[in-house]
């Protein structure tokens, strides 16, 4: 890719050009649609595309921008083409969750975060691929097709928000929303050289996000730089009366977050070596270099320990499947979605769910059902909740001494398609560093901090205390200002 296209702009760059009048939203949207046309046959990021609707929204945005120019008012995302993970409900637009069971399901309402994007003026391009019901780390568990990593077409884009990450990396959207249950925003962002932010649990409404594990699910942005991630967060965050777990509005100071690169006085807890986890040498190198950069910016490095994090994987794979086993019970073929032919009710349930769900979803539903059985519940689910509390307390103790914690987002860079499919445990290990924050409900962000020998991006993960997104973004922004990783774009070698 030598010719620069508006499709490769960041949101804030595009907004500047739109405000100057040197770029129209229609031209921008056309450029992105053009990119989709040339790249998505290979990347396969999208499940549903809405080119006509997107262009119509873009034209309206251009008209509105002209109207607003005289009044001096503005909308933060006016005319910016974005993509949505296909587990976010969109009124009148199919929302499949990457599953056969919801292949033809069209929601009659918008998720709260989608409403907020629309209100902010965004142009919505389409719905992106994901692991079925967000269960996976490679987007290979999509019932329809796998998505490819724009940095290396033989590699996975990560998951479960792999479609969103691949779309943004390939210039098929300026940014996207994903959802993060155990790392599904941060890990694909890391694999695709992007910024992925998991907000504090409750910061963004889950209303309309198709539930995987209710106590863990959070919507988060995937963007090309920290500035864009911050902008998207400020649009989608906020209390929602329709989500009882959404928190009261908490401060989110963008001016502070995106100011300067002085990190003096900041105490950074470093967690690079993990007992029993093989971290790829290139990842370790890149993360340690990033730690040095933070130190150069004035931050003070402090040793931290999260002794119970080693249980995170076990805890997560009890709690998330347990909640999922109930959350996915509504897919019974009776009211919407796929319905198998059957003569009896029992047969209807068995066939609809047997044919409608893929292998990984079934594996987790069985695991979760098992964990909740009478007589096993105390030893499994309750025990896991107790361990979850210990993990949360580890973070509380650590944050008494440090302001943020840094480490790798994933122990590895993007792996080959098919490589880990046969071994679920290997696949689960790809999330090992992103699970503790999810279990503790903490905000965490992944941003590019280097590349491995194959030119695959490495992600640096920052974690902050609950509701300290401003601090998280501030540190990330300072690091980004001091480095150039985020400016690299993949060299798309397309087949047509």
């Amino acid at each position, binding site marked *: 890719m030598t010719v620069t296209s508006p499709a490769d702009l960041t949101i804030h760059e595009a907004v500047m050009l739109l405000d100057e009048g040197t770029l129209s939203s229609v031209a921008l949207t056309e450029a992105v649609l053009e990119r989709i046309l040339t790249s998505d046959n290979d990347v396969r990021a999208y499940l549903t595309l809405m080119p006509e609707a997107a262009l119509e929204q873009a034209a309206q945005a251009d008209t509105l921008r002209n109207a607003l120019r005289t009044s001096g008012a503005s909308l933060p995302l006016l005319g910016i083409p974005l993509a949505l993970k296909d587990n976010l*409900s969109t009124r009148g637009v199919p929302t499949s969750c990457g599953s056969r069971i919801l292949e033809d399901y069209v929601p009659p309402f918008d998720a709260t975060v989608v409403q907020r994007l629309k209100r902010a003026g965004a142009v919505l391009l389409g719905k992106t691929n994901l692991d079925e019901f967000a269960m996976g780390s490679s987007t290979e568990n999509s019932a329809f097709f796998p998505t490819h990593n724009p940095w290396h077409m033989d590699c996975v884009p990560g998951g479960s928000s792999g479609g969103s990450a691949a779309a943004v990396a390939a210039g098929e959207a300026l940014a996207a929303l994903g959802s993060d249950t155990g790392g599904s925003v941060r890990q694909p962002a890391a694999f695709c050289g992007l910024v992925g932010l998991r907000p504090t649990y409750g910061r963004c409404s889950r209303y309309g996000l198709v539930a995987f594990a209710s106590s863990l699910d959070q919507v988060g942005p995937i963007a090309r730089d920290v500035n864009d991630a911050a902008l998207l967060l400020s649009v989608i965050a906020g209390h929602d*009366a329709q989500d009882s777990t959404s928190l009261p509005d908490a401060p989110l100071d963008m001016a502070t977050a995106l100011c300067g690169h002085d990190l003096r006085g900041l105490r950074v807890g470093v967690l690079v070596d993990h007992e029993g986890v093989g971290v790829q040498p290139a990842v370790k190198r890149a993360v340690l270099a990033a730690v040095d950069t933070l130190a150069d910016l004035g931050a003070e490095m402090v040793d931290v320990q999260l002794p119970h994090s080693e249980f995170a994987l076990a805890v997560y794979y009890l709690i998330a499947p347990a909640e999922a086993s109930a959350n996915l019970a509504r897919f019974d073929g009776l009211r919407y979605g796929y319905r198998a032919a059957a003569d009896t009710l029992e047969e209807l349930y068995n066939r609809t769910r047997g044919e409608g769900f893929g292998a990984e979803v079934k594996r987790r539903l069985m695991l979760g059902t098992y964990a909740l059985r009478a007589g096993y519940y105390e030893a499994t689910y309750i025990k896991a909740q107790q361990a979850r509390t210990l993990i949360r307390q580890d973070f509380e103790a650590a944050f008494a001494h440090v302001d943020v914690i840094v480490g790798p987002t994933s122990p590895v860079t993007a792996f080959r398609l098919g490589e880990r499919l046969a071994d679920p445990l290997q696949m689960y290990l790809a999330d090992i560093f992103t699970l503790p924050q999810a279990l503790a409900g903490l905000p965490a962000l992944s941003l590019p901090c280097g590349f491995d020998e194959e030119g695959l991006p490495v992600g640096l993960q920052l974690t902050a205390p609950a509701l300290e997104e401003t601090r998280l973004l501030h540190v990330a922004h300072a690091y980004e200002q001091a480095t150039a990783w985020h400016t690299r774009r993949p060299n798309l070698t397309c087949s047509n």
Partner: protein
Amino acid sequence: MSYEAIIGLEVHAQVQSRSKMYCACPVVEDTGDLQPNTYVCPVCLALPGSLPVVNRRAVELGVQAALALHCTVAPESVFARKSYFYPDLPKGYQISQYDLPLATDGYLEVQTGAGANRIRITRVHLEEDTGKLIHQQDGAWVDYNRAGVPLLEIVSAPDLRTVEEVRAYAMMLRADLVALGVNSGDMEKGALRFEANVSVRPVGAAALGTRTEIKNLNSFRALARAVEAEVQRQIATLESGRSIEQQTLGWDEARGATFVMRGKEHAHDYRYFPEPDIPPVQVSAAWIETLRAALPELPAARVQRFITTYGLRVAEAQLLSGESSVAAYFEAVMAAADGTVAAQDIANWITGEFFRLFKEHHLSMEQCRVTPLQLVRLQQLRQMRALSSTAAKAVLVEMFQTGEVPEVASERLGVLQLSDGVALQNWAERVIAANPTQVAQYLSGKSAVLGWLVGQIMATSQGRANPQQAREALLTALERWRSTS
């Protein structure tokens, strides 16, 4: 061998809130002509991505019911998912409460012929109703209008021993819930549904027998008959040397017998776990006190007060206390009468004439057009003998229909008894003048003729004269006649 029955009741009471338990859909009364699936939304249809929000009013009513049942309200209670698959359950789980219910450890005093008994209540919790299956020739259909309607589940300890006690407990609970405004009490619309746990044991035995659970009992009659039948079945089973199996039973109203729905081996594992979409519900001490202060007087307390304050008999006190609107009316009449009319008279009129008219015209106290003051006036006219008892009843019917005050109604009906001295004197003099023979007979000592002469006044007045006063007026006129002739 003689046996004793050990019975516990689970009562599901539909909570009278305007909206459903976890969404803003209105709760609509199923009058039979409601279009299916018209009061539904993404939440109660369990569309993907929808989330529940607890109905605050339902929590308040639940807390009030719990307080009235002398329960301890939990400062923090937790909603839980109860999982099972059935077409009427849209989410595949019911949001109920499990190990941390809204309230625990209360009781209800129950009166039967055998005396008073305190029935312990183990728990009170909130949950949601299911939809309704409709079986038709062309297949089975589901109506979700009722899905998500708030239910209060009230579970008693196995403290009930007789069918009479079961019935009294259920009726008392209904009366209390209606008085509290928690439940409509409308059994025909399924506002209250019962499940009974039944076991029997030889009298004097300490260990409990194996229990069975009878589901879906929707009337007092079904409840009483099912419990009676099950107790007898269990006794007969034991007598024949067999043992009771732990089972879930249904009730066949037509056959008058229980039937097996599922055995112990098919018992559901509901896989309860805390509802992650709803944070624990906090009920502060201050909120509890506000709700306690707003509690209305319950029927049992009111019966006692009516007996002690107004000197009513138990039967009337109970009749007047059953519904708060009736009780309030009675007390308004008592206040308006201000001692001029006896409480027993007012009680008789309300429980007699009023109830008869309500029944006849399918009315309730709320729709009654007779104001307390009008009823007092009517009673006063009767006491003054301006109206006979029969006439007063006719006047009341008129007042019911027209809303007229008693004076106007009786005037129009022409039933007002005249005690007007001048009019009576005129009639008496006219009768004396017209009947010289009978007057002469009376004056010569045949006092029996007096009755005939009074009859003449009654006839002349077309029955409107007060007989007693007519008699007095006649006597006066006759004495005057005697002295002047």
